[in-house]
């Protein structure tokens, strides 16, 4: 979405938000350097990452999240509840057409009120990947260095700033603001090798704890709505005749056959714990050629024709990495 393309009221509201973010950033600079010594200061980088991972899953919180990428600003309300076993989430985008995303563990229901439709996106974990748990903090540290920087205030919370730098240039860096008391990540920036912020997410306001379960309920009664389910079937890329070579540290999360707009496609998803990428393989159309797709903030995509197939790599990775991953895809056997 481009700035000029926004309706005037949205341009105005975006401008107001940008100003708010800018003044927030200034306020932080003023209070930022006041690092002191107390109990939590003893945490190592690895411990901080563990705390953040745990907090994201186990805390109850509700708030308004601001997403900014280039001239684009989006706001969403989010409610998160951990019931002791799995986490529940409700995300309400406040821009664009009314939508709602209700998540329970690995299942997300996408509500489309104007069409009276519910689309259920369910992750089907493949048996062949037992070690699917999120990359551990120690694994993360093999590919990133973490600098425990100063303390800054975000949304009224005393935050620890963590600067996460990639050890190699094939992925982005991050700057995180973590609530020192709860461990909840309140703001995150994705940063390229020139130090430019490619996108950021921040809680404009957040309430930690004391979340009423009622807030997880959708805005609309969905009785009688049409229900569609995504059909993912786990597959083995090798058996399908493909060899993929993601950058080091990117572990396979899912490998599935799934429907795409153009027909069935193979999708392999990899993550290094911070960044993730997908490789799509589908039958090529006659006109398809190899080329980079338009970039969107930190999202880069590269499409490459391999014989009769089209290989498309999409992820929060630098353009060169997307291209390299696509180039490394090989037809084997068969």
């Amino acid at each position, binding site marked *: 979405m481009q700035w000029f393309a926004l309706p005037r009221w949205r341009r105005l509201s975006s401008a107001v938000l940008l100003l708010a973010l800018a003044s927030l950033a200034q306020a932080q600079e003023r209070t930022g350097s006041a690092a002191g010594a107390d109990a939590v200061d003893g945490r190592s980088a690895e411990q901080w990452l563990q705390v953040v991972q745990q907090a994201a899953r186990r805390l109850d919180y509700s708030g308004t999240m601001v997403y900014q990428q280039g001239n684009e600003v989006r706001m*969403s309300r989010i409610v998160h509840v951990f019931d002791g076993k799995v986490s529940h989430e409700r995300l309400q985008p406040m821009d664009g057409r009314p939508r709602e995303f209700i998540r329970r563990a690995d299942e997300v229901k996408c509500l489309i009120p104007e069409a009276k439709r519910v689309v259920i996106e369910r992750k089907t974990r493949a048996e062949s990947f037992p070690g699917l748990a999120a990359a551990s903090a120690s694994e993360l540290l093999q590919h990133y260095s973490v600098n425990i920087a100063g303390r800054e205030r975000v949304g009224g919370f005393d935050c620890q700033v963590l600067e996460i730098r990639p050890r190699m240039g094939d992925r982005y860096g991050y700057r995180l603001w973590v609530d020192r008391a709860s461990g909840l*990540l309140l703001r995150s920036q994705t940063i390229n090798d020139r130090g430019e912020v490619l996108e950021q997410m921040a809680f404009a306001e957040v309430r930690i704890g004391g979340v009423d379960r009622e807030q997880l309920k959708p805005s609309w009664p969905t009785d009688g709505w049409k229900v569609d389910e995504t059909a993912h079937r786990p597959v083995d890329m090798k058996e399908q005749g493909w060899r993929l070579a993601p950058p080091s540290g990117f572990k396979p999360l899912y490998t599935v056959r799934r429907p795409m707009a153009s027909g069935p496609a193979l999708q392999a998803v990899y993550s290094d714990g911070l960044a993730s990428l997908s490789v799509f393989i589908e039958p090529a159309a006659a006109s398809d050629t190899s080329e980079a797709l338009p970039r969107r903030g930190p999202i880069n995509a590269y499409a490459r024709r391999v014989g009769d197939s089209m290989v498309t790599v999409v992820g929060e990775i630098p353009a060169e990495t997307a291209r390299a991953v696509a180039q490394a895809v090989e037809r084997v056997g068969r």
Partner: protein
Amino acid sequence: MNPDPVHPSHSVSTSPAGEADDCAQRLSALLDGELDSEACRALVERLRHDEEACRTWALLNCVGDAMRSADVATFHSAGFVARVSAALEREPTVLAPAALPQRSTVRRWLLPGAGAAVAAAVLIAVGLPSRQASSPDATIAKALPVPTATVVAAPVPVIDRSPQLERYLAAHRELAEPTLMPHSTPYVRTSGAVLMQEKR
């Protein structure tokens, strides 16, 4: 007031309904890539002068965009037709090949969605390859290098490419797992955009 005494009143009357229908059909055919480049050129020429045809073209594009992407569809404001007309007004020099890459980049910023499609149609009607001179930020287009034979099929990809990226993104978002942020945060990135299943 009649500026042309030689052709009195009938020259300002509106086109007969049949002709308008025919025009709409040809515009639709243009969108579907079913016109040869000669007919394309004629139609684009007509778009420059015929307000009604221009409105029809805008409408057809709105419908197409709405089917392709919720995001793009919301861009069309009341002033849309006016903007397209104004853009077409400014367009003549686009016929000069040397001016192409830069102009089209600027136009992509000024004219989202169907506007860009009009621009693309103009470029394509002239029969020039429409690949963007590297502009990584252009979100509208992964413009194709167009061999002359398939030239007229290109207007669709030009507006369809961004939704295509959206679809890959949506599919990626479904299975990507943020470990530090709430799991739903990938949905924040594409919230107003197409869902995987929201295709025509």
